[in-house]
């Protein structure tokens, strides 16, 4: 009878139950906080401002990114460069130690 079930899988599933309860309580708290305290049951407005000024949404995003937000864009490129250089440095250090 119990050959049908894999007991290890059952134990793994039982182990997940408190985590599931925790995250469901978290989700219920989020729903309660949002749906009870706010009253924006409004519909999405049509993007009138964006589409009258620009021909499409991506054009608007690109123009904002390269005019208003050009300094954060450049700072973000530096952040990405630093992250990549740091990650490659860490990876190469261990790789050299392994192969020497």
């Amino acid at each position, binding site marked *: 009878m119990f050959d049908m079930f894999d007991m290890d899988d059952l134990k793994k599933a039982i182990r*997940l139950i408190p*985590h*599931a309860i*925790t*995250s*469901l309580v*978290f*989700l219920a708290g*989020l*729903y309660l906080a*949002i*749906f009870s305290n706010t009253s*924006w*049951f*409004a*519909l*999405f*407005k*049509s*993007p*009138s*401002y*964006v589409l009258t000024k620009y021909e499409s*949404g991506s054009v*608007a*995003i690109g123009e*904002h*990114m390269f005019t*208003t*937000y050009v300094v*954060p*864009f450049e700072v*973000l490129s530096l*952040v*990405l460069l630093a*992250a*990549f250089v*740091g*990650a490659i440095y*860490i*990876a190469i250090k*261990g790789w050299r*130690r*392994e192969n020497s």
Partner: protein
Amino acid sequence: MIPVMYVLALAMTVFAIGVFGMVSARSGIRMMMSIELMLNSANINLVAFSNYHDDISGQVFALFSIALAAAEAVVGFAILLMIFRHKGAINVDTINILRW
């Protein structure tokens, strides 16, 4: 026209799935995936309110947030790589080198 509450409910649900994965994961890769889920639920909120307020800045900020999430993933995977080379496993139960 989708009401903004539905999009917020989607973002909250994705965030709760990320929390569940975070508290129940034992593998480091699975933890990184859950972190990405939580960050992307925040991005859903940004895009929803950008559309709701008819302002394109929220979507530009969501793009910045995606790039920062990429940098975070790079650094996290480099750390996981070094942990795997030192310990031979990325099971987070075995990583207690920062324990006081």
